[in-house]
């Protein structure tokens, strides 16, 4: 995605490479060799990073082939039996498949329609603050949750929501209501999940929008004020259109994360009583793969999830370009 910025800078050397005359090609290869040799230290520098990338990122990608096998650890990838699409057939016919797909899509929808717009509104609100000290203080406070792990966030929610002396339930009792078993009730899973997401990420999410807003030409606001435009009209007609490219890029990235709803977060909230709404692909991969040892089947589930994510991000990017926006690559 950020490769794009590179394009222009590198364009010169690229065209240099492609337009070269064929007779010159040999000497060109020699030239490349010479340049690589001259910069051998640079290659040495990126070597550890590259090795890491290959071993822990790309070899696992090739490891995805085990989803077409009956992989047995002692037989290895080369020795295991090939079974074609058997695991995928099993996934699509599994009675849990639709439940998991629905849960995943619902959480995704909550991310897009609830969690995504909030930082934009928050950034617009912060932008209206004239007192710098006040603004900085608010910012410092709302960034804090971003640095908290899901374990901490879920733990704090737990001690606040528990039936056993939790603050919220005690308040409910004092106000004359009955206690609510928030943590074991499947109806409460989605609200709790998305509140936690918003709580953790809304403040941090404002950073990029605030930067984009600060780049808007102040003259536009002056002109609008002269024409008698209200605050809300100024936001609607000047600020929002100005930051639209940023919003669209972030939205595409969010869609790219469509199925990355956070294994940790959901896994920490998952329990026997809310499984019907809380089981998503990631947690399903973990239980079937690591806890039950069905490596091939769970890899097939993960591959399906990853491919859907990849297709969605490519699609979202295409759509953005169609509507005249820049997209991410």
């Amino acid at each position: 995605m950020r490769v794009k910025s590179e394009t222009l800078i590198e364009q010169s050397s690229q065209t240099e490479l492609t337009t070269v005359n064929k007779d010159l090609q040999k000497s060109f290869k020699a030239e490349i060799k010479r340049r690589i040799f001259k910069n051998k230290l640079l290659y040495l520098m990126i070597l550890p990073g590259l090795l890491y990338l290959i071993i822990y990122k790309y070899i696992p990608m090739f490891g995805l082939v085990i989803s077409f096998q009956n992989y047995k650890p002692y037989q290895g990838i080369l020795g295991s039996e090939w079974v074609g699409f058997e695991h995928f057939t099993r996934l699509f016919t599994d009675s849990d498949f639709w439940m998991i797909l629905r849960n995943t899509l619902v959480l995704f929808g909550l991310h897009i329609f609830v969690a995504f717009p909030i930082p934009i509104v928050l950034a617009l609100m912060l932008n209206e603050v004239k007192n710098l000290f006040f603004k900085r203080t608010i910012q410092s406070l709302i960034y804090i949750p971003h640095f908290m792990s899901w374990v901490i966030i879920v733990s704090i929610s737990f001690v606040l929501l528990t039936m056993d002396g939790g603050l919220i339930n005690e308040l409910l009792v004092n106000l004359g209501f009955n206690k609510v078993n928030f943590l074991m009730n499947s109806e409460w899973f989605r609200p709790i999940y998305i509140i936690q997401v918003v709580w953790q990420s809304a403040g941090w999410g404002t950073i990029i929008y605030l930067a984009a807003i600060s780049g808007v030409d102040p003259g536009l606001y002056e002109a609008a004020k002269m024409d008698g435009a209200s605050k809300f009209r100024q936001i609607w007609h000047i600020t929002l259109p100005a930051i639209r490219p940023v919003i669209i890029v972030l939205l595409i990235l969010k869609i790219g994360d469509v199925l990355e709803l956070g294994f940790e977060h959901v896994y920490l909230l998952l329990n026997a009583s809310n499984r019907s709404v809380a089981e998503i692909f990631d947690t399903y991969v973990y239980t079937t793969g690591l806890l039950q040892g069905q490596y091939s089947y769970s890899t097939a589930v993960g591959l399906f999830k990853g491919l859907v994510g990849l297709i969605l991000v490519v699609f979202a990017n295409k759509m953005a370009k169609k509507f005249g926006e820049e997209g991410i690559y």
Partner: protein
Amino acid sequence: MVGEKEFGSRVFRWVNNLLLIIIALTMVLPFVHVIAASFTTSAELADKRFVLFPTVFSLDAYKYIFSTNTIFKALFVSIGVTLIGTLWSMFITLLTAYGLSRKDLIGRRQILFLFVFTMLFSGGMIPTFLIVKETGLLDSYSALIIPVTINVFNMIILRSFIMGLPEGLIESAKIDGCNDFGVLFRIVLPISKPALATVSLFYAVAYWNTYMHAILYINDAAKWPIQVLLRQIVVLASGLSYDSSEFTNIPPPDITIKMAVIVVATVPVLLVYPFLQKYFTKGAMLGSMKE
């Protein structure tokens, strides 16, 4: 007419500020409550409920959780993983970011694409687990570090920062006979403190917060980092006694004890936060904006 408008925008500003104060408070009050509650007795908590400033001060919860070395051990693991992991990741990330920032590196665009692609698609949990197993990292602290050596986003932040440095600086150092290692460590490093601070903070927080990799790759309860222990104690209410002999005759953790464990797991992050805060917004921008 003008006066009315000014009054309107004044009201708008007040409402806006008030809403922001409320939002900021909802973000931090849960922490304040948990911290306050951890320093009081459970009787006091049961009485007063919403304690922001405890009237009865008590260290009982902390005495309890530090009465054995279970928490100490987990803290020690987390601190060790955070320090070593951050140093290791910074070192490798910096080398890679510098290398990929140099125009002399033929193929750098392709190599950068290899890195960025892993943000869009990955082998997933199980194939990665199998590689971690094959490379012999299971049940070792390195399993929490090596498989997450480079965070591509952090690498791009550093790379953008280095690319933003004046080219002449690097060129003149080279003319003076500095090789690339010399340039990186003598020229680039000293002037990159804001970016280094930001990325170190991101890495350190990620290592401190590590949970998933610990439950995936570490079975031995004695090697658990604090986050895993926290989850055991608060949610499963069991972790304090993985070595059950240590806690004989002690009742299961009550709510103030859970809160004390949350505080212990949170405080280190809150302590470094104010010092690094001035850097990170700028750093976060570097990675997210297209130059």
